[in-house]
């Protein structure tokens, strides 16, 4: 009975840690590609398969395309909202976008192939977006009960008695 409960608890942990990108797709990722170098000199990495995540800025349903800005990924491959980014990129999908799931501000993690770059206007400039064709992606839902960043925190309390 005891071992049954131990197995039950362990399996709960396993399910909660299930990979967001399948193992088969993860193995296709070119692990020697640095995202920093990719955003600096994208032409060197055309054709490479990369793992990248970020936040959705705009949806172009007519072209099955998203524009996003990159964000670092945590241990679960969830994009961090830490106000840091290497730059913007476009994601092109072969199929129609999941309009009910994918909206502005949504976090997305994907594996895709770098196809090149494309200039699009951002305010007064012509911004050079990376263009990535999605192979597999995961949309992160907002407000999951377990959706928090673990960390170390210290608190100070004051107590008294009457």
């Amino acid at each position, binding site marked *: 009975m005891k071992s049954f409960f131990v197995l039950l608890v362990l399996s709960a942990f396993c399910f909660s840690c299930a990979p967001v990108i399948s193992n088969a797709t993860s193995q296709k990722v070119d692990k020697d590609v640095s995202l920093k170098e990719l955003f600096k000199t994208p032409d060197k990495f055309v054709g490479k398969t990369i793992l990248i995540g970020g936040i959705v800025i705009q949806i172009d349903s007519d072209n099955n395309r998203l524009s996003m800005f990159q964000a670092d990924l945590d241990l679960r491959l969830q994009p961090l*909202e830490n*106000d840091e980014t290497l730059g913007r990129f476009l994601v092109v999908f072969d199929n129609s976008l999941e309009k009910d799931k994918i909206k502005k501000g949504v976090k997305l993690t994907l594996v895709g192939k770098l196809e090149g770059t494309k200039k699009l206007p951002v305010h*007064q400039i012509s911004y050079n977006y990376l263009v990535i064709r999605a192979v597999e992606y995961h949309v992160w839902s907002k*407000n999951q*009960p377990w959706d928090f*960043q673990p960390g170390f925190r*210290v608190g100070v309390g004051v107590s008294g008695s009457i």
Partner: protein
Amino acid sequence: MSFLSKRNRVFKKSVSTFCFVLLVILGGCAHPISENLRKSIDPSVSLPVIKQNPNQFANQNVMFGGVIVATRNFPDKTEIEVIQKRLDHFGYPNRGDETEGRFVFVKQGFLEPEIYSKGRYVTGAGKLAGTQSGKVDSREMQLPVIEVAELRLWEEYSKTPYSSYANPYFYGPYGGPFSYYGRGFRRFGYPYWW
């Protein structure tokens, strides 16, 4: 080991642990602008004073903060238009309604406008580089321009690391499942009116 020397050892360990914890807490309260830059700033130079005579303060270091109104990208720079708010001792902008006006932070390079977005709080310091025209509805005004050397974007309240289980309102005003006066009491069979 005698009782006294053991007690001294425990006391020393407690003091050093407390000092470590205090350092960690104080580290989190550090001012976002470096001490060297802050030392070069004259705190009496406020926005109204600058607006009256902007040329007098050209190239002087100033420090302001507030809430972002707009972020504009240009080929070589990014402009952030800010509604000024008073800064507290830790450089954090006050969240009240009082303001001395608007100003513009200018930073070389590209800052992501979706991150430096309207409503975010920001603190920055740098050289005063004159003024530029701005508009609020149909009213034209001259906005002080600061070429920012150090800039701090403050975290949004909504981006706290807590899950809904730690949300103080998730379980009502009496706390979470493990709180002394919350459901934990009921869970372990105590009457709920305690």
